[in-house]
């Protein structure tokens, strides 16, 4: 969704958008199915607060463990997991309580929505909502399950991205 907002503000800088399990709003709202009640998300923030205590501990040794594999450390440093836990907490709060539904029709960049099966974070209804409300989007249902197919099923994810970038016809 951050990419979509950026493309909306600076359309010239983006030629295509590929969105993996996007959600413009996580909280259910009337007829809109976001997948969560507010209390569920508060439960998440509570868990994050509780994990502050050990957070620094479990990041530090991990970075050292990857010393012999610098490429992993680089990946870690670039990942959201390596951010300051206070920032991670605020990032989660901003993400999960945001409502960007009204932004979708403003995005002019051609886009692909990659939807996972059984995604507990962004269920199919949400992915389809994004696809329907983006002016120029394609939708692709993946075999991959979960919310992070780039991590759990990198092969299928790369293939879907390549196909879309090559011709854009692989999705409906």
């Amino acid at each position: 969704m951050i990419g979509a907002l950026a493309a909306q503000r600076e359309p010239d800088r983006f030629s295509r958008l590929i969105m993996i399990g996007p959600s413009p709003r996580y909280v259910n709202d009337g007829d809109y199915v976001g997948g969560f009640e507010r209390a569920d998300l508060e439960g998440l923030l509570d868990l994050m607060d509780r994990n502050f205590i050990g957070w620094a501990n479990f990041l530090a040794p991990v970075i050292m463990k990857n010393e012999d594999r610098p490429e992993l450390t680089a990946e870690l440093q670039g990942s959201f997991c390596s951010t300051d836990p206070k920032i991670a907490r605020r990032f989660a709060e901003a993400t999960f309580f945001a409502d960007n539904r009204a932004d979708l029709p403003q995005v002019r960049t051609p886009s692909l929505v990659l939807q996972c099966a059984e995604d507990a974070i962004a269920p199919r209804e949400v992915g389809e909502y994004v696809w329907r409300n983006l002016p120029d989007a394609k939708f692709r249902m993946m075999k991959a399950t979960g919310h992070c197919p780039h991590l759990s099923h990198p092969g299928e994810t790369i293939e879907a991205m390549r196909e879309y970038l090559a011709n854009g016809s692989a999705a409906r």
Partner: protein
Amino acid sequence: MDRLLDSAPCGFISVADDGTMIEVNATLASLLGFPRFELQGWHVQKILPPGGRIFYQTHVFPMLRMHGVAEEIYLELRTKDGETIPVLMNAIRRDRDGAFVCDCVFVRMIQRNEYEAQLLEARRLAEQASAAKAKFLSMMSHDLRTPLTSITGNAALLAAGVHGAVSEEQLDSLERIRNAARELLRMLEDILGFAKLESGSVPLRLSDVPLEAAVARAEVLVRLHMQESGLTFSTDCEGAVVHADPDRLQQILLNLLANAIKFTTTGGSVSVRCARDGERAVIRVQDTGIGIPSDQLQRIFEPFVQLETDNRERGVGLGLAISRELAQAMGGELTAESAPGAGATFILVLPAR
């Protein structure tokens, strides 16, 4: 599954990358109230409450996928009856029989969880109280400054004879009023400075500072005081350069020198010596004064702490606390060494250039 693992006093599951539970031990199945065969083959999110599902997908799994290990993760598991059980999880992701699985152990932490919640709450309250204290100190010192300025100003006007001639005795009293007010004002500045430091609102302007010049600058300001107290002063700081805020460094040096003068009797000496120690510069401010008992060496850096001495000029006990905070803010440290009767040495360490 190994019989020992099956009945071990902790829950165990093995989860595939797609979230399917491949193995579940008997301990966990019974903790959650499910028959084991029901759990195997299910997605792990079935045993997590909604918040935990998101946390697993957005944090725990990515972490395991990228780091291969996650330790001391607080989670809540959901039982068949819909109850939640707080647990601590350790997990490791590894290749087994040609596929990656995450092996996770869960330890129930009901009492620790309550204790931890109390700790967290206590920390939150302490942080609130500390912020309130800093705000109060800052407001108080601001508000007290105005009437004090008026006292010194009006005493000066009276002493200057603006409202008519004043006698020698009256002048003497006015001088005492002004001195006392100035002293109060100095203490207020300390409190205000400390409150600003505590709230992190003191900007640092770091640059390369030659120590010889910095010490000479401080010496000018304390020279008279030094002479009046009958102390000899020596420095040896040639060549050393630190990366610091020159004004804050000056503040620390003045605090340390004022301190040395305060606690050193007539005929004694005060010295400042600088040396480089690898990446750091070490500045030692040494006196031949009454010294500091070893059990007080840490305490003197705490705010509002004063050594028990009589007939000494009083302050609010913030000089050393401020100096240490400033040193730390500049990436350095301030410590003290002493033995009673053998003088004290304050050691200021700062990044060298």
